[in-house]
């Protein structure tokens, strides 16, 4: 019995989300193979070899996997998957894109965004924006699973190389899709999903320029910056900053919600944070019902003040 975990990477760096998915795999208990699909991704492979708990690193380093297009990588994962009992990936947009395609090719159901492993076939996952937690059992011969990263503490990266490398010759090019371009956010701030402190702004910020007030506080706290859907829809900030049911799920030590009302869909993405602070000028705002510390104030005076006392 072995578990296959799909590595999340950009051909240069192994992404932290992989370590959370590996934690879920560790809880399942079997040997773990970590699959790296990409092109010229040797540094990722070395990093993968150093991760604790990984027995083998499977490497498919071919041009057809360079952009990790779903149509191509799913063919490889499904081909390998028949020999495994579990196939796991982090529930990132990449994992969400690829894994259901893998599951259907294997003719099995998928279990999305597990938050706990109860046994080899039984898992917990949130439904209805996290307002209910379902315990689900799968009878499929291969269990295809995505893992909610914020629910599993990352496994450690060791100093010495321990896992062996298996080179895979298979080149699957479905010929259905072509990569055109990407526009990716560059920032020296911590990643939203890794940060110890997150400060998010909502519609209350009124425009994109005013987010500078949020960034100024974020700099003092070494915080990542997030946003509500309303702030993204209005074009204040880019889509990758959306926290919530249909955006990113975060669970930092400290989450500061500024000018955010606290809709069900937003809470779904941050209510597992350790400490929640809300700054809102409407004392009836629903966000206060889940905030540990609420400050009823105008954000345009509270944020500069906060920056100056930190």
């Amino acid at each position, binding site marked *: 019995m072995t578990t296959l975990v799909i590595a999340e990477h950009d051909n240069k760096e192994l992404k932290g989300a992989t370590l959370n998915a590996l934690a879920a795999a560790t809880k399942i208990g079997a040997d773990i193979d970590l699959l790296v699909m990409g092109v010229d991704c040797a540094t990722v492979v070395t990093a993968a070899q150093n991760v604790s708990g990984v027995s083998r690193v499977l490497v498919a380093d071919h041009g057809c996997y360079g952009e990790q*297009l*779903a149509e191509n990588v799913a063919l490889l994962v499904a081909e390998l998957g028949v020999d495994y009992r579990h196939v796991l990936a982090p529930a990132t*947009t990449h994992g*969400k*894109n*690829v894994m*259901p*395609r893998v*599951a*259907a*090719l294997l003719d099995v*159901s*998928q*279990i*999305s965004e597990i938050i706990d492993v109860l046994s080899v076939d*039984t898992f917990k996952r*949130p*439904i*209805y*924006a996290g*307002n*209910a*937690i*379902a315990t*689900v*059992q*799968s*009878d*499929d011969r291969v269990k295809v699973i995505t893992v909610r990263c914020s629910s599993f503490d990352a496994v450690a990266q060791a100093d010495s190389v321990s896992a062996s490398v298996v080179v895979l010759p298979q080149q699957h090019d479905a010929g*259905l*899709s*072509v*990569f055109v*371009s*990407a*526009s990716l*956010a560059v920032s020296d701030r911590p990643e939203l999903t890794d940060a110890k402190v997150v400060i998010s702004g909502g519609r209350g910020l009124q425009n994109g320029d005013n987010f500078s007030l949020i960034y100024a506080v974020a700099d003092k706290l070494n915080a990542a910056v997030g946003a509500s859907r309303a702030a993204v829809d209005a074009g204040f900030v880019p*889509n*990758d900053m959306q926290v919530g*049911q*249909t955006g*990113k799920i975060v669970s930092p030590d*400290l989450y500061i919600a500024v000018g955010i009302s606290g809709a*069900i*869909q937003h809470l779904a993405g941050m*209510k597992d944070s350790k400490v*929640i*602070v809300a700054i809102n000028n409407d004392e009836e705002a629903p966000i*206060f*019902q*889940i905030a*540990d*510390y*609420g*400050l*009823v104030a105008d954000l345009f005076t*509270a944020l500069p003040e*906060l920056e100056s*006392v*930190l």
Partner: protein
Amino acid sequence: MKIMVPVKRVVDHHVKARVKADGSGVELDNVKMALNPFCEIAVEQAIRLKESGEATEVVAVSVGDQKCQEQLRTALAMGADKAIHVEADNVSDSLLVAKLLAKLVEREKPRLLILGKQAIDSDNNQTGQMLAALTGMAQGTFASDIQIDAEQLTVTREIDGGLQTLRLTLPAVVTTDLRLNEPRYASLPNIMKAKRKPLEKITAGDLGVSLESKLKVLAVESPPERQAGIKVGSVGELVHKLKTEAKVI
């Protein structure tokens, strides 16, 4: 070009779901139901493609019990041309839904399928990708923009790091993200007109798909409730509490 738009009936997004006392599921009695918001965006996109002359026909499909015909009527009122209701009781396993839809694709031969990225009840985010696999089509998930020319579709996707643009061979499957468009409201005359538009009903059996699922829901429980904390009187007090009481900064 024919476009097929699978749509799901779900609990309205304003309603906070409540777990039943016996832990068997979520309370659905007397709860407001609606078209899944991502499906609304899918219907809107299909109609816009028809209005701009790129599509000739928009077919809405829903898998579910009799009541999902209400949501099909909503899709028709928004502007879909015809609807297909696939009668089935248990639609919580996206693989089964995808299998049923794949059979309909064989029959209807759409050139483009637009689905929501996620049903806000199951939060599965699976059906479109599975359908693409079963039909051997390309997939453009989490779309915030699509452009069509004769043989190809250019789709911009919302991904964790930002945006990604792909070119897909048609026929293809697209799943919608929130920024793709802002869905219209159906006007009263269009709601009336929708009542006379064709709505075909078939069963899973007609499509030759077994509805047996390998997934069992053993229990449904409420998540731990968070309690409201305290209100602080000033920024100074807030920072003091975060340092000395919560010890998070």
